[in-house]
């Protein structure tokens, strides 16, 4: 029973990982939180649906969708984010809210607000370890396999290729990378392509795993992905992986706890939020913390500051 819940947590985490790595890459290289990332996932899921109509083959359709979403990422970069380069973290964030509204509602306008489905017939459950884990191979194993291989590929790319080195250099210090001969514009494009590829895969996998597509499917996962990013440590790929595992597993463990204790299982949605706030309270840099710009004073000092202010009179 416990094993089964842990397994379900891993399935949930594997979808979150793909999005969280993308958010983290963009945060590291472009220095802003992409609020439209969930909608890039939705875009991938819907384009998989569109191409499925032509190819009748989920894998091919998902690969075609990857191209579309990566292109959408580069188009965003060229049209919007390249122009907001020196405007601090908030201007691109607000722009990404606009992008999110446009993407999500364009999909709704075109496809209608109703649910769609890939129309896959899920085969019977497979049973492992003498019944400890039972799962549907397409719904549960495919997401895990896709997430594991895509994550490995990304880590290898970041660590061992010249492009990965250039991306890490740009993330650390853009100007220094530029004078060292890194073409930062290309690095930005490649970052968007990579984030788009991962988002699209994540969206297709989400569609397969949930079984239905809705225009808000990615946006509802945004909170979980941000929680994973912050719990793991913003700007670090290892952090994103760890954070997604923590968030996914604690969500499924919460189900278990609610079964035992009689707590309402619908509160599961509050788990990522609780983890997020706890991280911000205790260790704002996350599990694999890199320093995040500026000195962070301990909470004690801040609260003392607040009490001092209250003692001196409110205004």
């Amino acid at each position, binding site marked *: 029973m416990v094993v089964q819940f842990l397994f379900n947590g891993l399935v949930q985490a594997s979808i979150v990982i793909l999005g969280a790595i993308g958010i983290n890459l963009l945060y590291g290289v472009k220095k*802003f*939180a992409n*609020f439209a990332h969930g909608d890039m996932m939705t875009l991938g899921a819907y384009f998989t649906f569109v191409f499925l109509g032509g190819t009748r083959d989920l894998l091919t359709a998902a690969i075609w969708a990857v191209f579309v979403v990566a292109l959408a990422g580069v188009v965003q970069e060229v049209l*919007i984010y390249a*122009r*907001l380069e020196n*405007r*601090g*973290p*908030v*201007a691109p*964030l*607000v*722009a990404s*809210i*606009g*992008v*999110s*509204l*446009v993407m*999500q*509602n*364009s999909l*709704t*306008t075109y496809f*209608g*607000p109703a649910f769609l489905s890939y129309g896959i017939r899920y085969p019977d459950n497979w049973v492992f370890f003498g019944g400890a884990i039972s799962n549907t191979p397409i719904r549960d194993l495919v997401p895990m396999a896709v997430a594991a291989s895509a994550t490995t590929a990304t880590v290898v790319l970041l660590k061992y290729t010249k492009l990965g080195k250039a991306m890490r250099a740009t993330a650390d210090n853009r100007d220094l990378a530029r004078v060292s001969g890194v073409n930062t514009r290309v690095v930005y494009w490649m970052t968007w392509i990579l984030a788009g590829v991962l988002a699209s895969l994540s969206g297709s996998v989400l569609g397969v795993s949930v079984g239905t597509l809705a225009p808000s499917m990615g*946006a509802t996962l*945004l*909170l979980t992905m*941000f*929680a994973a990013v*912050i719990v793991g440590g913003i700007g670090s790929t290892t952090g994103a992986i760890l954070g997604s595992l923590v968030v996914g597993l604690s969500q499924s463990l919460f189900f278990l706890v609610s079964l035992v204790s009689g707590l*309402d299982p*619908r*509160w599961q*949605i*509050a788990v*990522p*939020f609780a983890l*997020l*706030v706890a991280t*911000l*309270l205790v260790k*704002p840099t996350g599990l694999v913390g890199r320093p*995040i*710009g*500026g000195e*962070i*004073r301990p*909470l004690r000092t*801040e*609260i003392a*500051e*607040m009490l*001092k*202010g*209250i003692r001196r009179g*409110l*205004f």
Partner: protein
Amino acid sequence: MVDLSLVTDLSRAWIAPAFIFAIVALGLNLQWGHTGLFNAGVAGFFGIGAYIGAIFTTPAIGPGPGGPGHLGLVSLFAIFTPYTVLVGFLVGGIAAMVVSGLVGLLIAIPTLRLRADYLAIATLALGAIAVESIRNSDPVTGGVYGILRIPRPWEFGQDVWRTELAFAITAGVIVLLVFFLIQRATRAPWGRALKAIREDEDAALALGKNTYFLKLQAFVIGAALMGGAGALFASLLRVAVPDSFTPALTFSIWTMVIVGGSGNNKGVIVGAFALTFLEYFTLRAKDWFNLSSFWDIRIFYLRLIAIGLLLIALILFRPAGLVPEPRKVTKKPWILFGRR
């Protein structure tokens, strides 16, 4: 003779919501425009306020076939007999402000010391969680069924007082009051300290300002205003359901502030009227242009696309908004050189 039905329709679907959103936008303007604090959970604070207000003005309903029932505290004020609802409304409005402010305080304490986007992520999460919590707290909030038949404050009075116009005027008076207070506060040294934080927090800190506490005040007051506006909103719609408080609401209020010019209190009210008119237009376009049912469903989404495009365009080309914040330059530059 004025066409009364048009007045009623306009005040119900444009003027009154515009006034209410103007209060929210003024609150967000205090947080973002004046202090530079990014709040992405406006709808959450607004929703909390709406439910608190609704609970204080409606009678309790037990669980039954029509839904899980909800809490109602209006009977507490029964001693004020003809004015029961009005008193409940006042108490509920204040309670809505207090609760929203407290929720804002709790989320602000750990996040205000971090970079601006942490507050954005945390408040985005808070907005989603607030609405989900409302949805899940069945016996208190009515769950997905929400709270129905929320009264208006003036229901004890004559027929004139019950009209939509009367409610719109009430909301307008509240907006005037809030605008006056905020305008005073932001022009006072307090508001100038907030602007100093927005422009350069380290400099403000070096000048001896308690920046953390000032940011906390701005955030909590803004959140309280959003809560109070929520209580009014519940009374305007007469229903409170969790689906009213989506992130799309947050983002359209953001657009109001950015259209109006962040930091400019008057501009923000203009922005609220403009954006709410867009919503009114999409509501009534079906009747005005004989839309087919296909476009009738989709015009709502087209409005959100338009808002998104507007947001992107403003950030790219007019970051100070259509009505930029007036620059404060002294007319007596010589005071800088010591002559009084």
